[in-house]
């Protein structure tokens, strides 16, 4: 995510002053086209989405964003409940996944005996390869009942004074199940990037710290984490991006409730899963357009998250004195 300023790089200078090789020209052309393609694609997507959402935009205006409700019979639509659901599931998943992933990455780079590093790394990365529909099924049939019968009652009795941990839901599908599913899905992303970052910390720095008599924990806290902070923050944001956009697995376990409930154990819905569930079967043009409006909100949301991520990375990098 971190963009190094490379304009001073000799190799980056245009071909003047150097002999133009055909290969260089081809490379520049191909790479330039690829980059341009990505930009054009995003532009086209944005254009199509705005066009598709026009009907809903003109019918509901900006009030759509905060209106809570989705009634295809009486043609009244709003994004409020799905924005809430998207925010609470993504934040919840980040809160659970960030410490876990960093823990896994630290274990794999600093603590694990050599023999088990390889297998554990491979297994964690395999998590990322499981199709989301399969994770969703597992969520309905296996995880949901376990959460409902054991975890939710425990959380309710221990932390019930916080409104978030209200009475457990009887179905085992709900916001909390979606958070756990999302946690599992973003864990491999954050942990494998963090692992690469931790591996990139120069051995001399770590050895130096240990040589000064620090404990392993002090070395991690004083050397590894500060050295990689920006990158880890970027990894977390990447995970957030995945959590924001995940549709199918969430759609299967979140319980599709339109409304705002602070009890994590109640069903809810997110922008992405709402779109995935209803796009093919929308019964009116206005509902279809409203679903595309949801997509527009999701797109804007993702762009904001990305920009914030860039800012965080840049700030952290600056503080480290690494920025040029």
């Amino acid at each position, binding site marked *: 995510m971190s963009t190094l300023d490379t304009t001073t790089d000799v190799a980056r200078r245009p071909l003047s002053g150097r002999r133009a090789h055909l290969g260089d020209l081809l490379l520049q052309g191909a790479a330039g086209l690829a980059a341009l393609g990505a930009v054009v694609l995003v532009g086209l997507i944005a254009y199509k989405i705005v066009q598709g959402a026009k009907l809903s935009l003109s019918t509901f205006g900006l009030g759509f964003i905060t209106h809570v409700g989705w009634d295809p019979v009486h043609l009244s639509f709003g994004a409020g409940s799905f924005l809430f659901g998207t925010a609470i599931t993504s934040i919840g998943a980040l809160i659970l996944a960030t410490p876990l992933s960093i823990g896994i990455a630290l274990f794999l780079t600093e603590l694990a005996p050599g023999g088990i590093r390889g297998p554990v790394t491979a297994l964690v990365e395999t998590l990322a390869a499981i199709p989301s529909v399969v994770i969703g099924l597992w969520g309905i049939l296996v995880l949901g009942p376990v959460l409902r019968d054991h975890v939710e009652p425990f959380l309710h009795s221990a932390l019930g004074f916080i409104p978030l941990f209200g009475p457990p839901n009887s179905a085992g599908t709900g916001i909390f199940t979606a958070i756990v599913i999302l946690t599992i899905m973003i864990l491999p992303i954050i942990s494998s990037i963090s692992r690469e970052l931790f591996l990139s910390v120069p051995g001399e720095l770590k050895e130096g710290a240990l040589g000064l008599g620090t404990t392993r924990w002090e070395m991690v806290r004083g050397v590894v984490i500060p050295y990689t902070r920006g990158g880890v923050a970027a990894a977390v944001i990447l995970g957030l991006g995945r959590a924001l956009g995940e549709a199918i697995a969430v759609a299967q376990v979140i319980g599709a409730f339109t409304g705002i409930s602070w009890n994590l154990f109640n069903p809810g819905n997110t922008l992405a899963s709402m779109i995935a569930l209803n796009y093919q079967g929308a*019964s009116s043009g206005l509902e279809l357009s409203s679903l595309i409006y949801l997509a527009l909100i999701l797109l804007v949301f993702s762009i904001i998250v990305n920009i914030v991520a860039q800012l965080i990375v840049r700030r952290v990098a600056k503080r480290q004195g690494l920025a040029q």
Partner: protein
Amino acid sequence: MPRNGKLVRIILVLGAVAVAASFAVTAASAKRSAGSLKGAGSSFVAPLVNAWIAPVNSNLGISMSYNAVGSGGGVSAITNKEVDFGASDAPLSVFSPTCTTCVQIPWALSGTAVLYNLPGAKNLLKISGAVLAKIYLGQIKKWNDPALQKLNKGVNLPSTAITVVHRSDSSGTTFNFTDFLSRVSPAWKSKVGTNTSVAWPAGVGGNKSAGVAGIVHQTPGAIGYADVAYSTIAHLNVFKVQNRAGNYIIPRLKNIKAASALDTHPAKDGSLSIVNPPKNAKYANAYPISTYTYVDVQKSSANAANLKKLINWAVTKGQAFGPKLIFQPLPAAVVAFDKKQIAKVK
């Protein structure tokens, strides 16, 4: 271990649905060739249409493909002429924009079953439309509610909380089910209404029939709904539903057939409703949530000849494949109407 067997079966069915759904998306834009017909729509009718593929190929020489993308998807696909035929459980008039240049033909007949999971209770408990509507409105919350207990005299219902399960995606099955609830409950009709998806006042949603069945399966106290064919595959308990004659009816072929006696003359647009037949000895054994499901085709179609052959076959010989999958063969009068509708395709 019957419990595990059931779980494995549900997983298999869910997996198949997922694969089918992902294929559907890619196939929707695939190219057509001569002698082949492409259809998309209702997942309710999919088992029957899939059973037709092989005999249609060997008897008519037409290779047919069908993608169960859901009723709404089927209607939009035929409206945009992406397919040769669309299939929908809800009549075309429900959709807006809808296909104004289409012919609507009722081509299969079945029903919607009400499922439940109540540990210790036997199969085939009784329920009435009014009580079912109150449950889905969130007004009846416990199994031992006097209203439910009254319907099931002699059964000791526990105080287990009722978990209402509905479809989270748009679905023709939801249209059938909410159509029934709107007809039996004025409160439902005014507060919620009838559509392929509605603003559910209570409960949790499952994705597709498989998702509903999955949640019902693992939630003690759950009540859900699915088409009769699916509920048979999923091996879940089903309610006997009270009809207006006052009898409690199992969702079975002969009772769906009894409901079809209500009306065998489709409206001009091809729609035909047999939901909740009136109180009459003739419909004493009618299952009240019985429904026709439709095939929609463009009046002028590049593949008109093959399409006509296919649908003619489907509403006649094709019906013989129905009973095994809990589809009741069409009444003769409906077949006669269908043939007239098919003649409009050119």
